[in-house]
Every structure is written in structure tokens, then in C-alpha cells.
């Protein structure tokens, strides 16, 4: 993939935007088209597989309609994970840590557990379920922004220390949640468990009507800030020099990332390596700095990967609950591979 050999006549008085050559542009468009096709094909496959009724008839929909929710969940989760991971990696200036690895989801789990622990599953009964959900999300976003803006403030100097502190905090929050869960009344623990560990086949879809617009608005905000992300990826000094208030931009991005992660976790629970997997693939496929091109490719890749795994495991191998495990396994292996190959963080 040497650009040198593929570069056509250098466009002297003007560039071709985020592309390095005409070949690069053609390739990028082909990749995008192929991913869109794959996503559409996968959606049709997920809807239609094994459904023997007349396609798109009333009875056909009765069977396939139930699958629509799963498809929506897959699309939402990958959307959140993809955008959050890319934005997070850009503002932190590295492509190893992701919000999941840094413990965003552990934080969500902790907040949920703590609410049940301190108020009991019935203690908050006066608040309607949606209010509780909103409270959890708000607390998670608040804590995430406070914790990670402190962690990313540069106080820790280098990435290794920051990563270490982040992982320890993440693990610590996980342990704290586990500890509180141990002490819960078994009934309350059951209720909590049902809320905590969603999976694609059994996602928490009670508030989809709320989650979908929030995700759309947040994701669009990241998209609209795409050009700023391009600059932020050059680091704090250069982006300050180019007229961005780096600190404020990082805070805004962390806020958006925290919202997206809260949405994703509320649907299906923690997914440690999915974001890392698809973001890493997307960077190497797109090979550009332009976030407006990286973001859609990341999402589509995520949808194809998670949807593909779901399809294989549900309809071909019938191991529904293993979807996240398989994706995590692949993601974890890729993570290990990237770290080992680069030899550094």
C-alpha cells in the first residue's frame, strides 16, 4: 500500500482533500460502497434467513419483525462503540486505549450497582423506571467527564502511566461493583443482574425510543465536529496553535463519548474490544486523517462484524449468547497482535 507508487500526477495547484492520490480516492469509495452493500445484504439475510413465508407478506413480517429489534440493537451498539472509540482515541492521541479499556463501562456498572446497593431495588420505586434510567446515565456521564478529564489532563505526563491508572481504576470499579453485588439481597441481585447483563438477543430495549434519538444527536454532533477532530489528532500543542481551545474541545468530546458509551452499555452491557477492533480496522482501511470518512467506515465495519457474528452464531451454529464472547475473543486477539507488533503503546 505504498502511496509513492500509486501517486498519480501530483495535483500541483490544489490537493484532493483528504486523499493522497486519485487511486486512494477510488479505493476509499469502493470500500465504502462494498461496506454499504455488505451491511444491506447482512440485514436482508438476518431478516429473511429461515423464514419460509412469502417474502414481505404479513406472515413473513410476523416472524421477521421480531428480528428487527436485534438488528436495531446491533446497529445502535456498533454506532455508539465506533464513534466513541474513534473520538476517544483522537482526543487522547493514541490508538491503543479505548473508552471500554479505560473503564467507561465499569463505571456504568458501578453506578447501577451503587444505586441498587444504597437505595435498594424498591427504594427508588417512587421514581419511574425511565427516570431511574436517566439518573444512571446522567451520573455515569458526570463521573466519566470528571474522572477522565482529570486523567487526561496531562498530569500523568505519559501515556503508559495514564493507561495504567485508567485500567486500575476500571478494574477497581469492577471489583467494587462485584463487592457490592455480593452483599446484595439475592432478589435485588437478580433484578440488578437483569439490568446489567444485556446481550443482543436479550437487550434492554425498554427505552429504545429515547436511546435512538440521543445516539443520533450525539453521533451527529461528533460528525459535525469532525474537522475539529482532524486538528485535535495533531495533539494539544498544534491544535492550540491552530486556534482550538484544546482543553474545552477535549471536554466536549469526552462528554459525547460518555453519552454514547452509556447508551451502548445500557443496551447490551460491556463490550471491551469491539470498539478497538473496528477502529483499528477502519484506520488501516481508510488510511486518512479525515474523521468524516473514518467514522462511517468504522460504524459499517462494526455492523458487519457484529451482525455477521450474530448471524453465524444464531442461525448457523445456534449459540446465541456467545456472540459477544466471540467478538471479544477476536477483538482481544487483534488488540494483542497490534500491541505486540508495534512493540509499544
Amino acid at each position, binding site marked *: 500500500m505504498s*502511496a*509513492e507508487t500509486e*501517486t498519480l500526477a*501530483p495535483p*500541483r*495547484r*490544489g*490537493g484532493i*482533500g*483528504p486523499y*493522497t*492520490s486519485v487511486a486512494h480516492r477510488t479505493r476509499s469509495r469502493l470500500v465504502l460502497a462494498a461496506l454499504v452493500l455488505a451491511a444491506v445484504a447482512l440485514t436482508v439475510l438476518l431478516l429473511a434467513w429461515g423464514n419460509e413465508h412469502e417474502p414481505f407478506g404479513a406472515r413473513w413480517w410476523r416472524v421477521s419483525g421480531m428480528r428487527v429489534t436485534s438488528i436495531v440493537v446491533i446497529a445502535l451498539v456498533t454506532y455508539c462503540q465506533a464513534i466513541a472509540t474513534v473520538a476517544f*482515541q483522537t482526543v487522547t*492521541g*493514541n*490508538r491503543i486505549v479505548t473508552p471500554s479499556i479505560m473503564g467507561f463501562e465499569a463505571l456504568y456498572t458501578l453506578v447501577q450497582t451503587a444505586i441498587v446497593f444504597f437505595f435498594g431495588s424498591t427504594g427508588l420505586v417512587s421514581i419511574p423506571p425511565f427516570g431511574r434510567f436517566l439518573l444512571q446515565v446522567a451520573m455515569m456521564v458526570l463521573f466519566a467527564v470528571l474522572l477522565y478529564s482529570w486523567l487526561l489532563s496531562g498530569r500523568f505526563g505519559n501515556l503508559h502511566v495514564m493507561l495504567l491508572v485508567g485500567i486500575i481504576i476500571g478494574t477497581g470499579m469492577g471489583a467494587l461493583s462485584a463487592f457490592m453485588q455480593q452483599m446484595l439481597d439475592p432478589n435485588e441481585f437478580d433484578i440488578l443482574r437483569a439490568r446489567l447483563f444485556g446481550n443482543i438477543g436479550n437487550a434492554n430495549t425498554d427505552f429504545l425510543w429515547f436511546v435512538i434519538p440521543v445516539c443520533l444527536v450525539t453521533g451527529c454532533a461528533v460528525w459535525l465536529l469532525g*474537522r*475539529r477532530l*482532524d*486538528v485535535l*489528532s*495533531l*495533539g*494539544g*500543542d*498544534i491544535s*492550540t*496553535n*491552530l*486556534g*482550538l*481551545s484544546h482543553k474545552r474541545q477535549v471536554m466536549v468530546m469526552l462528554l459525547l463519548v460518555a453519552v454514547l458509551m452509556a447508551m451502548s452499555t445500557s443496551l447490551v452491557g460491556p463490550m471491551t474490544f469491539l470498539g478497538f477492533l473496528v477502529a483499528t480496522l477502519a484506520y488501516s482501511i481508510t*488510511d486518512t*486523517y479525515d474523521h468524516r470518512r473514518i467514522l462511517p467506515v468504522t460504524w459499517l465495519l462494526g455492523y458487519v462484524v457484529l451482525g455477521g457474528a450474530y448471524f453465524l452464531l444464531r442461525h448457523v451454529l445456534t449459540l446465541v449468547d456467545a456472540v459477544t464472547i466471540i467478538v471479544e475473543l477476536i477483538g482481544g486477539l487483534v488488540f494483542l497482535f497490534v500491541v505486540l507488533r508495534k512493540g509499544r503503546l
Partner: protein
Amino acid sequence: MIRLSDVTKRYAGETEIGPVSLEIPKGGVVSLIGPNGAGKSTVLTMIGRLLAPDGGTIEVGGLDVHAAPSKQVAKTVSILRQENHFVTRLTVRQLVGFGRYPHSGGRLTQHDEDKISEAIDFLGLTDLEQRFLDQLSGGQRQRAYVAMVICQDTDYVLLDEPLNNLDMKHSISMLQHLRVIATELDKTIVMVMHDINFAAVYSDYIIGMREGKVLCHGTVDEIMTEQRLAELYDIYVPIHVIEGRRLGMYYWSPELPKRAVPAG
């Protein structure tokens, strides 16, 4: 005009910069010299608003750089630090294009493209503009970064050791480029320099710093004296005039004179 009024910066421990009060005239090439740890880079990064001072104000071209809107400051002063690392893979042209961000907001017009081409040509990178930064030598990469801040088209350009990583040939070529930029594009270039002779040959104005304070500032002839250099560096630097230029022969220092005693 760059004006610093009672600027201070405290670090943990006993290190302290300032108070520095200084006026740097507009136009030409200005060098900041001094021994290690004198606070040259700190002062430069504070002028370039990458580091907030603990006290005092800094004005560049009539703009308080730490109070004025960042976007406006980015059209007045640009700064390049020594170390620049990022994960994105960019070509030279893309990097230089980022210099237009304060003007274009990321949407490059034909005018921006012309400016980019101009900056690339100015730094002699025409044939390399489609190369990726990681395919360049240290010197070429350094020139690409300088092209980016030139492309930002600000009246004031701050460079932290622009000769870092450059061999003799590329050092000279870089300084000549900067000289031409200062003269032809009518910019003020302020840079931290380690080699006093490069500073002497290519600067219009020199500022000497030591232990966090400005010890002396003036024209090359005023600063390039044995007394001034002994005060700054604690070593005896004999000054020789070669082809009309004052050069300090610091390569061997026979004895360490007492400070402030003119030697030779």
C-alpha cells in the same frame, strides 16, 4: 511588537521563570539564546500561549494572547515546538494544509491551496509534497512543520530550536529560508537557538536569558561581546570578526573567567 510584562512561571521546587518584562521589536529574525535551563523555551511557549503564565501579561501585535479568542490569536502568532508526534499518517501537503485551519476552518478554498503550494515551494518541498511524513528524513520533516506554520500566515512565527535534527547543510538552508521569509513576507520570526554563531549570523536581534531572567537584549553587535557571553554562559568566548561577522570561538575554553569581567 511582542510585549511581556512581569511574566512569571513557577515550577515545582525552586525553579522559577521571571519576572520577565521585555519588548521584542516587530520585523526580522530574533533569537533567544542562553544556557540550558535558562527558560528560553518556557518563555517562547508562553508567548505562543501553549503554556499559561502564573502572572503577568503577554501581548503579541496588540493582542493579549492568553485572553483573546484563540481563533484570533491563531491568525496573529504561530508556534512550532521541537517535538511533534501524532498517530495520524499525513502527507506533506496535508500537514501544511492544516496550517490554513484558522483561516479556512478545514474547508480549503483555491486561495488556501495557493497558499499551501507557496509555503511548500518556499521550503523547497515541492517534489516531496505527496510523500508521507514517515517517509521523510528528520530534516525534511522539520521543514514540513515549518512550512505548516508559515502557511498559517501569521505576522509572528515562533520556533523552538528549528535546527533540531538538522545537519550543517540543512541548518544553513533552513536559516536562509527563514531569513527570506522574514524579509520577503514581512514576518517577525522569534526562535530559540543553541548555537550562538548561527544566531549571530542570521538574527537582527538577540535576547540572552539566564536562570529564568532576561539578562540582556539588543542587536547582534551589542550581544556578541566577550563580556556578555561570559555573563550568559560562564565561559570565555573569544570573539573573532570574520568577513564582517562577529563569531564566538567557544570550542575550546582555556579558562573560566570570573563573571562580568571582560576577558581577552
